[in-house]
């Protein structure tokens, strides 16, 4: 039984979006619009006022980097950049769309959405401290989780997990060294 997980595959909604935006990806039931950073605020205002996407869900970023200090690097090389993703929804049909844009790694900066969606305030503060992205015109761009004297942006791929450096996670061993027979987990 395959389930549709988001209702963003409702065809009329996709059609109405396609008429306005050219770069739309619909993979795994997740609708994603890619836009230029210069259009960021206008697009959001348009989506809110014309497409009825009044419900602000979340905003965050992804650090695309080939050389990583934690985890696995991407399989295919990528051009290093930040991808900023904002998730909007509307509250009648439950349509959902992710809006994505790219900003460069040197002095990353983008306009703040606080004037359009008040809820983006804390999400932007989180992205600011975790990735070091500057949100222009933000009313109070300060750290939200981390203590005042904290240096660095923990969610960057170049930021090491100190405890992991000191003592490697045994979880890797579990997965790699799993015996062929015996452990029936994963099989029904």
């Amino acid at each position: 039984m395959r389930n549709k997980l988001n209702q963003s595959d409702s065809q009329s909604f996709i059609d109405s979006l396609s008429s306005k935006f050219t770069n739309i990806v619909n993979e795994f039931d997740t609708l994603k619009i890619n836009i230029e950073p210069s259009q960021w605020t206008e697009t959001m205002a348009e989506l809110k006022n014309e497409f009825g996407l009044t419900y602000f869900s979340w905003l965050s970023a992804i650090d695309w980097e080939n050389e990583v200090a934690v985890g696995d690097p991407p399989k295919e090389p990528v051009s290093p950049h930040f991808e900023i993703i904002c998730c909007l929804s509307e509250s009648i049909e439950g349509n959902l769309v992710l809006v994505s844009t790219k900003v460069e790694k040197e002095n990353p900066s983008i306009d703040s959405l606080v004037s359009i969606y008040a809820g983006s305030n804390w999400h932007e503060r989180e992205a600011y401290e975790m990735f070091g992205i500057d949100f222009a015109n933000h009313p109070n761009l300060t750290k939200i989780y981390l203590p005042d004297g904290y240096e660095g942006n923990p969610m960057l791929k170049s930021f090491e997990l100190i405890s992991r450096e000191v003592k490697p996670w045994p979880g890797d061993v579990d997965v790699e060294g799993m015996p062929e027979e015996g452990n029936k987990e994963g099989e029904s």
Partner: protein
Amino acid sequence: MDTTINPNNMPHISEASVSVEIETEDMTLNIGPQHPSTHGVLRLVAKVDGEKISSVEPVLGYMHRGYEKLAEVRTYPQITTLVNRIDWVSGFANEIPFIAATEKLMEIDVPERAQHIRLILTEMARIASHFVFNGAYALEIGALTPIFLAMEDRERVLDLIESVTGGRFHPNFNRIGGVKPAAGAGPTTKKDIQDLPAGFYEETKIVMEKVLEGVDRFENLVGGNEVFRVRTKNVGIITKEMAEDYGVSGPILRASGVKFDLRSHTDFLPYDKFDFEIPVGENGDCYDRWYVRLVEMRESAKIILQAIDSMPSGPLQTKVPKVIKVPKGQSYVRTENPKGEMGFHVISEGGLGPYRLKIRTPSFSNISILPELLEGQLLPDLIAIMGSLDFVLGDVDR
């Protein structure tokens, strides 16, 4: 400026009035991180003028555990143990969106029986979470009795969850492709080997009757109390626009009159097979938020009773590879957690673990409304409003 005094222009002594505003300095009141009603370690720096609040600045991070970073060095099956601990009051409900997002990326079909078991346990987690809210909220308003009754009722539901999963708070029961086999804690029947424990259906029916009784008792004991009504009605009104702007979700959004419940909007679990109502409030005040949750408990009990009557048979898991590797792709799945919209954006680059995992937790967005909502309120109302948002600090800080 005319400095001469003209006696004709002077007001008569009876018309004279004195208006002197005494300027007082606002007092900074630190509420938390250790305080009886901040649900853990939330800290509010409030500027108060007597009992009146002029501004509030929440300070977060006392429980920030960096789950998003940790997820990058964990494999997919390991992450389910992490997400259990985000909102520990309803641990089971946290697993569903992550598992569903991963299954989506791997394009796995989950057996119907596993989906039904997931649904039943999610609704049980919802009942347990709302019982905690009901008891704790009454305690914050000042009534001392309901919390004891709520905990007793909740314990019955947790016992049921424990009998299936083996854990009260952190079940870690979901596997990619289904649920954990050999789950039953009690002796298994011949029919359902390695499945739900024997007598689970009968026990559930009894407990659900008790839950419904408990909900009725709460409606009388708490909702029927005039003091509770004057404390909560027309207090902390969240309008529709304000709620959507801040991304407030779940019962709080529904109390503001928005009929937005992901259980009916998305198909992450087979809710469309069951008949249930989505309660919606009118005013968006504290009383509505309390009442919406109360009615939701009834509806959840209804769903569970229907689900155990129509439980399909079949396997608990589909075949998945031993070492789980998720193909490249991005998927965002959100579910209706007891506290609101809980979503996981999984970005996979084809490795053993996600390249990036964005966790959207309901409480974080829900309490981001606090500074605007609390401005100009009285100090006792701060507690009433904060309590009605029903947040868990693990859910706020992740």
